[in-house]
């Protein structure tokens, strides 16, 4: 599958400028692009959540005191958990898109089976 090295920006360009309804192949490609994009996004969100939660756990303001330890740890854990929820929702979107691809494949099969005029 794709990873962070495949730039999200280029994927987004492909997502926005896709010609979805010109042909079956174009539509399939579009679905694939959406899946890849959501997958990359999920991965990045999880990584960023880890970074942010580590940062919050060790954060010391420039002046003044830190937040008490237990509270700090609890809040950082919640941040990470929410970022994982974001990724979960994105993966759910991926599975919906996969179902779309399934329906499209079914349509293709029905079209092949029908008699040409």
């Amino acid at each position, binding site marked *: 599958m794709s990873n962070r090295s495949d730039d999200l920006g280029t994927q987004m*360009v492909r997502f*926005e400028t896709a010609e*979805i309804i010109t042909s079956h192949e174009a539509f399939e490609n579009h679905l694939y692009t959406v899946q890849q994009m959501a997958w990359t996004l999920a991965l990045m*969100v999880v990584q960023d959540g880890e970074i942010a939660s580590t940062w919050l756990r060790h954060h010391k303001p420039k002046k003044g005191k830190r937040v008490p330890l237990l509270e*700090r740890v609890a809040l950082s854990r919640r*941040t990470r958990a929410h970022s994982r929820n974001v990724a979960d929702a994105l993966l759910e979107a991926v599975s*919906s898109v996969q179902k779309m691809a399934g329906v499209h494949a079914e349509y293709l099969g*029905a079209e092949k089976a029908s008699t*040409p005029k």
Partner: protein
Amino acid sequence: MSKQIDLVEAANDFCDSDLVRSHQTFRDYQENLRAMLLSISLTMSEDSRQAAAWLRHRTAPDGRRVGWLQRIFLASRLRGHGNNAAEAFLEAAKAVVRMSAVHAEYMLAEQQTNKTTGAGSGAKRQGRYETKDGA
């Protein structure tokens, strides 16, 4: 509700955002992510509607057509799944909002800590009036 943003620009910002430099950059990052997810969701639902309309009216180049009922049935299923995907993106945006709520809580806790124990840290002596810039 959501402002119109350029998806590509938002994605590039998202890629090279420096999220842990300060509280402000972290907030900007979250706001950007939220706007991006909402915009993706809108695009997704629009796309699924277009694709469903296309499948419903489609005649293949060689004149083949899927049967009427089946065509409509498949198109509506496609649209439904597309809407589900859009909804999942919305759910992701919701989780981002919750994450930013946690961050707000953190900032509040930081403020509270510095307020209640200001005497010891020397930032503020007792008996002073509290001013806006903390002087």
